């Protein structure tokens, strides 16, 4: 399969993620949509890295670090969501304004 096919799949995933991010107010659903975008970005990155044998290992190394950081980011956001739910009994992001110092 040509690289453009992988990039096409990545574009579709990216668009679905953007749609979810724009239409949802639930913090966890927004996080899940952001994760779709992250997966789309990884696919696009590796598709482009596979075009050149010189850039392949560099792309792989960056993706390994990106996946690790994404796992950490998921932990942080889910912790904020749980804290917010305990304090407000809601996950609506509009409620976040009330958390301002």
């Amino acid at each position, binding site marked *: *399969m*040509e*690289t*453009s096919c*992988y*990039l*096409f799949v990545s*574009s*579709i*995933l*990216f*668009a*679905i*993620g*953007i*749609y*979810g991010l*724009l*239409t949802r*107010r*639930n*913090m*966890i*659903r927004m*996080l*899940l*949509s952001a994760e*779709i975008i992250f*997966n789309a970005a*990884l*696919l*696009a990155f*590796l*598709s*482009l890295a*596979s*075009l*050149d044998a010189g850039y*392949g*290992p*560099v792309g*792989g*190394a960056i993706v*390994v*670090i990106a*996946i*690790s*950081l*994404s*796992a*950490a980011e*998921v*932990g942080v956001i*889910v*912790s904020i*969501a*749980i804290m917010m739910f305990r304090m407000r009994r*809601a*996950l*609506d992001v509009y409620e976040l304004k009330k958390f301002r110092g």
Partner: protein
Amino acid sequence: MNPLSDPLSVVFILSSLMSVIAAVLIVHHKSIVYSAFFLSVLGVGNAILFTLLGFPIIALFHLSVYVGAAVTFILFSVVMLKEAPVVEPPVKALAVIAAGVLALIMVKIFSVFSAEPSFLLNYRDLTALLVTKYWFALIVAAIALVTTLIEAITLARREV
């Protein structure tokens, strides 16, 4: 040439469909728990695509760290939470237009790359790069993962 005659093309088509359908279900499924489950399906589909591109080690890493840890963490956490209402329909229509235009622009940009990927990631090259050139990023990623571990322990120990 018929793409269905090549087994790799069939695997590509099936895994792409799996990823796209899982992504749609993540956004549209009523239950947030099932949405989190479909994120793991998307992760598996993406891992298959990574393998087809010549990155089997990255695919294994994606399965173990992302699907195995991050998505499972979300899945267990959302059980404690409940749904909030979605935005009004006019915003939804605008979001559909925005996502469609974005997809078209990206497809147009990406259509330039028409080469066939013929690459297989070498494990030695990857580890050599990580410990020589990207050692600092590796340490930062490790520290970030440790903070996640501390968060998870704190959440588990706190009384509801």
